[in-house]
């Protein structure tokens, strides 16, 4: 923990500096007011609190000298505050000198990281003397008459600890200071910490964010307008406006970000206490405290993380004796790690404890009828682990104060999912457990799909979206079947319950329902269940700014909020879970559906969803759909060449293209290239490659029985799919042949 302690210490020192400089300024002002006879009854409390806080904080972070100097003044001030002494000019002079001394030490601390070696004993002596000197007390004071009014104030009412500044400025200053250690305070004017950081009300930042959102809208309108104009000056100005707005938006977003270390800072204490209580020894390692998150998310993950940490110490890490027997060091390791990846924040909580006992989880699930016996026989270890997220599950052999009451992991999962995150559990018996949490960077701006229904636009958060299905009129008539009034659609062999958004929201205009040429189904997932939502029109995906609804509308569970669209109008954001419950797609008894789901998954595991396509002539190929990121069409003229390879620009990146037919020995090469070209985007470990195929045929779900033959180049085997022999494409093999670098610096999976 040494490294982290250092960072923590620096943070605490920063806070102390920021707060103390503020405080001492107040101290001086108050003292001068008293000298001029303008003291309020509260003035002495103010200055006492300033010193009390400095003393307390300095003591906490081991700045002994500052603490002891502050202490002497505090004694004098407490006598003054309680009216036991009367203020006189000598005292005012001494107290001002004392304030200067504190400032000097703090400045020295800021510049050099040391408290300085100046001797203040003379001043301290003077202060002590003033406390006892009757003569001093007897002297006339111009402000003496108000003393009796002072109220006794508990030291606990000292001002609340400051909000930890999220800014980079203090950190940068501290770095600068670290490099300039040898210099004396006066020799070089380094900007002081209180000059580079200011405290800003969070409401102010929210307001700023709103205004920026509005600016973005205005900018969009101007861009639309100037698109038609041909005035070069106007075009230039618009271009600049565009750039500045984007930059401004990013900067304002950043001001709302806070390092995750703000939440973590209390964990060392929790770990220590919990470990102590359970008689265990645990070493906490924290990595990536500087990882920044929106403040609303920081709030939301605080409790789930605390719970997970308690769990890890309670259930994960073994008592020292047991660890020794297993040949592990006495002290257990608990690692907290946070990092950014792909626009999301990843948090990992790892322990090197006993891991999760799969057999025991299974047994427990059976006991609590969370799992049916026939399912238990076939369920994979991976799925067993996920059972701990079910409500009412707890494997702790005894219920402790710390955990094991069966409310726990399900709440963690629900809370994380509520903010659009996901939780994954990995465990190896005897080696430890890892919990991986992925959460979005911000809740304020989310990607969403915009749809139209009943003439109104709605935004659907992308996290709930699985796929889009369009049925042409003929298909629609045949494809949608009705069971006792409940419409369903067979999506790759499974029944998908359908919800008509316009009916659900009572948006139906009389007589409008019959005119359906094509049906648009948005396949959504909520609480582990899939359902299809039928909408009139699918518009586009967009980044939207989420705004809350007024309390008059809070009772409607179908909406999660509202947003402002590019044209300045308001659109509602659908709450997919609420909508699903409203439409009775998700039954209210959750346990039952989850048991079903566990069974469904195991059955579904045997089936595979495959993408069928052709590459060149006479070749029928398939790859698992799970490896396909997207299907795209690119116009032939958008294909460029780079590094001897065909590439296209794709979502701001360069996507290398691989002509599949070139790597298949038997496929006859195509004579003419179609335009546009069909591309299957394949993604692995965050890298993508485009497989150029000649035609995409279908998506099927099949129980795959692979007949392995002598492997040919680019083919991993063959199977009968839809009564036809189909080759399974060996995508990694082809990529390796086409682009040997693709796998080179790929991250090792954990």
């Amino acid at each position, binding site marked *: 923990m040494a490294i982290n302690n250092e960072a923590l210490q620096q943070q605490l020192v920063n806070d102390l500096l920021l707060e103390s400089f503020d405080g001492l300024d107040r101290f001086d002002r108050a003292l001068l007011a008293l000298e001029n006879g303008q003291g309020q009854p509260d003035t002495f409390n103010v200055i006492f609190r300033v010193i009390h806080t400095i003393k307390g904080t300095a003591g906490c972070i081991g700045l002994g000298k500052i603490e002891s100097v502050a202490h002497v003044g505090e004694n004098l001030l407490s006598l003054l505050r309680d009216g036991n002494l009367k203020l006189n000019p000598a005292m005012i002079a001494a107290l001002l000198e004392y304030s200067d001394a504190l400032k000097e030490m703090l400045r020295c601390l800021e510049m050099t990281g040391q408290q300085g070696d100046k001797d203040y004993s003379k001043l301290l002596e003077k202060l002590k003397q003033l406390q006892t000197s009757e003569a001093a007390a007897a002297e006339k004071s111009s402000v003496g008459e108000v003393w009796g009014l002072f109220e006794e104030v508990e030291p606990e009412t000292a001002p609340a600890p400051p909000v930890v500044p999220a800014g980079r400025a203090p950190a940068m200053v501290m770095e600068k200071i670290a490099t300039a250690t040898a210099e004396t305070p006066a020799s070089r004017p380094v900007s002081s910490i209180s000059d580079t950081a200011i405290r800003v009300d969070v409401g102010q930042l929210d307001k700023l964010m*709103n*205004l920026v*959102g509005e600016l973005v809208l205005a900018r969009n309108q101007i861009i639309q307008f100037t698109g038609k104009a041909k005035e070069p000056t106007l075009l230039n100005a618009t271009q600049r406006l565009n750039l500045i707005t984007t930059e401004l938006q990013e900067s304002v977003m950043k001001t709302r970000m806070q390092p995750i270390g703000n939440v973590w800072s209390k964990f060392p204490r929790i770990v220590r206490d919990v470990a102590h209580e359970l008689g265990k020894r645990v070493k906490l390692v924290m990595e990536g405290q500087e990882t920044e998150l929106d403040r609303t998310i920081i709030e939301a993950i605080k409790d789930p993380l605390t719970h997970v940490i308690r769990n890890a110490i309670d259930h994960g890490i073994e008592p020292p004796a047991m660890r020794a027997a297993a040949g592990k060091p006495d002290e257990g390791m608990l690692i907290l790690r946070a990092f950014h990846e792909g626009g999301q924040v990843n948090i990992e909580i790892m322990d090197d404890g006993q891991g999760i006992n799969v057999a025991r989880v299974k047994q427990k699930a059976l006991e609590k009828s969370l799992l049916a016996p026939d399912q238990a026989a076939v369920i994979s270890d991976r799925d067993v682990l996920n059972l701990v997220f079910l409500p009412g599950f707890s494997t702790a052999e005894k219920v402790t104060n710390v955990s094991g009451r069966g409310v726990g992991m399900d709440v963690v999962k629900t809370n994380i999912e509520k903010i659009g995150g996901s939780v994954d559990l990995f465990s190896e018996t005897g080696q430890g457990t890892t919990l991986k949490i992925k959460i979005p960077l911000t809740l304020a701006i989310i990607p969403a799909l915009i749809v139209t229904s009943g003439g109104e636009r709605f935004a659907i958060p992308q996290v709930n979206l699985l796929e889009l299905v369009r049925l042409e009129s003929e298909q629609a008539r045949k494809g949608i079947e009705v069971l006792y009034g409940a419409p369903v659609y067979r999506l790759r062999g499974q029944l998908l319950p359908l919800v008509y958004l316009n009916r659900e*929201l009572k948006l139906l205009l009389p007589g409008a329902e019959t005119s359906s040429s094509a049906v648009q189904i948005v396949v959504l997932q909520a609480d582990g269940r899939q359902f299809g939502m039928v909408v009139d029109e699918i518009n586009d995906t967009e980044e939207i700014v989420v705004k*809350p609804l*007024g309390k008059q509308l809070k009772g*409607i569970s179908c909406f999660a909020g509202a947003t402002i669209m590019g044209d*300045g109008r308001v659109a*509602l954001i659908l709450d997919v879970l609420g909508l699903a419950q409203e439409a009775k797609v998700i039954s209210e008894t959750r346990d039952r559906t989850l048991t079903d789901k566990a069974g469904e998954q195991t059955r579904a595991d045997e089936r595979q969803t495959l993408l069928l396509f052709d590459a060149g002539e006479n070749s029928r190929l398939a790859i698992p759909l799970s490896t396909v990121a997207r299907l795209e069409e690119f116009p032939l003229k958008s294909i460029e060449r780079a590094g001897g390879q065909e590439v296209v620009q794709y979502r701001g990146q360069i996507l290398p293209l691989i002509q599949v037919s070139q790597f298949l020995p038997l496929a006859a090469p195509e004579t003419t290239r179609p335009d546009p070209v069909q591309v299957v985007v394949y993604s692995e470990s965050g890298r993508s490659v485009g497989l150029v195929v000649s035609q995409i045929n279908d998506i099927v779900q099949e129980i795959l029985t692979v007949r392995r033959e002598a492997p040919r180049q680019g083919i991993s085997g063959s199977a009968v799919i839809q009564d036809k022999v189909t080759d399974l494409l060996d995508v990694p093999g082809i990529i390796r042949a086409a682009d040997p670098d693709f796998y080179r610096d790929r991250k090792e999976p954990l």
Partner: protein
Amino acid sequence: MSQNSKQYCTFFLNGLFFGVEVLNIQEVLRYQQMTRVPLAPATVQGLINLRGQIVTAIDLRHRLELPARASGVLPMNVVVRSEDGAISLLVDEIGDVVEIEDDVFESPPETLRGVARDLIKGVYKLKERLLLVLDTERTVNLSGATLLPSESHN
């Protein structure tokens, strides 16, 4: 402004003359495009975009159980401050800001019935007409009995 008088922003609704203390008013706007909210109480007419802030618009005629506005007539927005933030009240027409002495105030008559009894704080007896003073905090609070879902189109 004398000690014993208050300023009121006035507006008309179905021929009645209403007033809200200016301190409670954020701004007055002409008709804004609205997004209707399905499943919302009928009193909620929709949502408007007020410089990036999403504001709920309440149909004051419906709230006060007055007959509906003739179709084609666009209402005005009186944006009031409430505990829950800004809320827009849709009214027929905006009047002047008037300063009224406290001594012409009277509690609502006992014979006042229905929802108006709850929402009208009192009456100022002006020379030419009566000014009804609206309790905005109660008006925007829909959690009472008036929270009935809008009649749906079947």
